[in-house]
C-alpha cells in the first residue's frame, strides 16, 4: 500500500468488510500465432500467472460509501467478485458481514446485493415485475414488506410504468433503474456496484446518483462502487480507494486525495475582450488563453497572495477558483504509478 490515509482504517467503526492480504492469481494460457504453433500448442501449452489482485488490505465500516477507482484491468471488479463470493482467492482472508464470502452461505448471500452495469440480471423476455416476484421467493421476503419496498423503490426512480413491459424493450437507463430496484428489494446491508452508470446519459446518471444517495442514507447501507466516472465519485463517495495493478495505491477521503495530490488550483478569469498575453504571463504561472477567457494554474500555497494581484489586472469581469478536476488527479496518480513501476522494472 503506497498512500493510505493513516486515519482511514483506524477510524472505521463497526467494520462490515475486513480484508487482509487478499490476492487472486489466474493462470493464462498463451495463444501462439500461426497454424503450426497452434497445432503444437494442442500438445504443449505455455502459461503464465497473472496476479489480478495482490495482497489487498481494506476495512469498510457500516454505512460507508466507498469508491474503488483504477484503470482498466486494475483489479477492481476482481476484488468485488472476491468480496461477493463469486470467485475464490489464491491467498488472504476476507470477512463480509462476518462471513467468508466464498463459502457462499445463504445467510450471507441474503444480506448483500451485486449490481453489474454491463450485465443484465433480470429476465430478458419478461416484464421486470416477474423478476421481482422471483426475487421475493428466492430471498423469502414477506409479501406485505415486498410490496411496500417495491412500491417505494419504483416510485423513487419513477419507473412504475415500466415494470410490466418486457425488459428487452427498455432502454439501457431504464433497465439499470430496474436492476437497482431488484437488487434492493431484499434490503441488503451491503451493496456492491460495478460501474452502474456505464453508458447512461447525464439525466439517468443524475437520477441514479440521487436515488443511491437517498437509499444509502436512509438504510445506512454499506456501498462499494467501482466506476470510471468521477461524477459518480464526487456525487456519492466520501472515501476513495485507488487500485492499480491489483494493489491499493491510495485509501482515504475524497477531500484528502485532492489536498494530497494537487499542488495548484485552477483560476479562470473572464475578460470583456481577449487580454494581452504579457499582462497574464508576467505572473509566471502556466496559463491557457481561450479568447476573452484565461485559465491559470496557481500554486495553492501562493493563491492568497497572488490572486489579488491577478484580479487587479485590468478588465477582469468574472473569476472562479476551483480544485483540479478529480479525473485529472486520478489520471495523474495512475500515470505516476506507471512511471514508478517502469522505473522499478528498469532498475531490477
Amino acid at each position, binding site marked *: 500500500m503506497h498512500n493510505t490515509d493513516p486515519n482511514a482504517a483506524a477510524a472505521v467503526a463497526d467494520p462490515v468488510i475486513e480484508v487482509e492480504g487478499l490476492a487472486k492469481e489466474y493462470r493464462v494460457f498463451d495463444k501462439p500465432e500461426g497454424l503450426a504453433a497452434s497445432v503444437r500448442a494442442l500438445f504443449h501449452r505455455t502459461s503464465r500467472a497473472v496476479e489480478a489482485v495482490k495482497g489487498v488490505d481494506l476495512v469498510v465500516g457500516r454505512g460507508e460509501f466507498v469508491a474503488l477507482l483504477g484503470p482498466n484491468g486494475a483489479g477492481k471488479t476482481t476484488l468485488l467478485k472476491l468480496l461477493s463470493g463469486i*470467485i475464490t482467492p489464491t491467498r488472504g482472508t476476507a470477512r463480509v458481514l462476518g462471513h467468508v464470502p466464498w463459502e*457462499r452461505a445463504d445467510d450471507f448471500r*441474503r444480506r448483500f446485493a451485486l449490481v453489474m452495469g454491463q*450485465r443484465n440480471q433480470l*429476465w430478458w*423476455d419478461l416484464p421486470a415485475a416477474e423478476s421481482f416476484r*422471483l426475487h421475493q*421467493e428466492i430471498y423469502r421476503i414477506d409479501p406485505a414488506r415486498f410490496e411496500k419496498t417495491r412500491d417505494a423503490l419504483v416510485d423513487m426512480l419513477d419507473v412504475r410504468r415500466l415494470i410490466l413491459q418486457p425488459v428487452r424493450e427498455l432502454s439501457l437507463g431504464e433497465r439499470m433503474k430496474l436492476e437497482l430496484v431488484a437488487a434492493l428489494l431484499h434490503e441488503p446491508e451491503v451493496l456492491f456496484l*460495478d*460501474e452502474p452508470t456505464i453508458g447512461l446519459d447525464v439525466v439517468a446518471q443524475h437520477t441514479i446518483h440521487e436515488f443511491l444517495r437517498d437509499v444509502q442514507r436512509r438504510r445506512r447501507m454499506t456501498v462499494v462502487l467501482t466506476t470510471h466516472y468521477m461524477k459518480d465519485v464526487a456525487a456519492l463517495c466520501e472515501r476513495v480507494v485507488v487500485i492499480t495493478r491489483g494493489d491499493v495505491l491510495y485509501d482515504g477521503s475524497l477531500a484528502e486525495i485532492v489536498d494530497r495530490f494537487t499542488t495548484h488550483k485552477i483560476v479562470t478569469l473572464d475578460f470583456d475582450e481577449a487580454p494581452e498575453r504579457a499582462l497574464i504571463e508576467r505572473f509566471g504561472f502556466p496559463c491557457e488563453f481561450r479568447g476573452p477567457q484565461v485559465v491559470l494554474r496557481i500554486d495553492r500555497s501562493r493563491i492568497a497572495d497572488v490572486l489579488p494581484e491577478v484580479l487587479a489586472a485590468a478588465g477582469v469581469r468574472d473569476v472562479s477558483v476551483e480544485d483540479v478536476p478529480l479525473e485529472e488527479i486520478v489520471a495523474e496518480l495512475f500515470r505516476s504509478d506507471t512511471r514508478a513501476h517502469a522505473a522499478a522494472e528498469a532498475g531490477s
Partner: protein
Amino acid sequence: MNRYLAILLTFARACLVRDMTFRANFLLECVTSLGWMSMNLAFYLLVFTYTAEIGKGTGWSKEPFFAFVATGLIINSIVQAFFMPSAEELTEMVRTGGLDAVLVQPLDAQFLVSMHRIDFSSFANGAVGVGLLAWAVSRMDHAPPPVAWALYPLLIVCGVAILYGLVIMLAAATILMGRNQSLYDFWFYLTNFSRYPAEIYSGPWGGPLRMICTFVIPILLVVNVPARVIAQPFTGESWGGVAAAVIAAAASLVVSRIVFQRALARYRSASS
C-alpha cells in the same frame, strides 16, 4: 423444500409466460419435436415388417419394444423439459459471466443452474410416450403385475436421476473449460446408447460396451430397467435390475454433486 418447489413453480410460470409470448416459436418446437419422434416410430414399424423380434429370444417383440420406446420418450421428455434447456444455456452464462448472478443468490447454485428454464414443448413427446405405453401394454401377451406398475414410476425417477447426474457433470465441465459448445452433441451421442435394449450389445465389441454403459456410465440402466419391468415378465431376477438402477441413480446424484461443487470452487468468472 417447499421454498424450492415454490421457486420451481415461479420458474415454470415465467417460462410458460415467455413461451406464450412467442407462441409461433412454441408451436414450431412442438411440431418439430413430434415430427422427429413420428419419423423414429415409423422407422421402428418398418423394422418390424422385416422381423418379429429385436434379437432372437430376447423378448423384444413389437409391442414390448414399443413399450421400451415409450419409456425412453417419457424419461427423455422429462430431462429435456426440466434440465437440458438450462444446461445448454450454461455455456453462454459461463462465457459471458452470467453465472456470477446465480452465485450471489441465496439458493443452491446447482438447482438454479439446472432448473431455471423449463421447455414446455418437450412435454408433447412425453404425452405421446404415455399414450404409446398404454397402447403397447394393452396389446402385449402378458399383463404387467401390480408390483411392476408400482416400481415403474420409481424406475422412471431413477432413469431421470442418472441422466440428471450426467447433465450436471457436463455442466461442471463447462464451468471448468469456460466454454463447452459440444455439450449437447456429447449428450446426444451418450444417450444414443440408452435408446435400445441392452441385449443388442453382445459379442466381442458389444459385450465390453455393455459393461462400460452399465457400470461406468450407467446409461444402459436408464430406459432398460423400467422398460424391462413393465414390458417383460416380472421375475425374481428383475429385482437385480431394480437394485442396480436405484444404486446407479443415487451414485449419479452424489458424484455429480461433488464434481459440480468442485467446479464451482474453480470458477474464474468472465472479465467485465
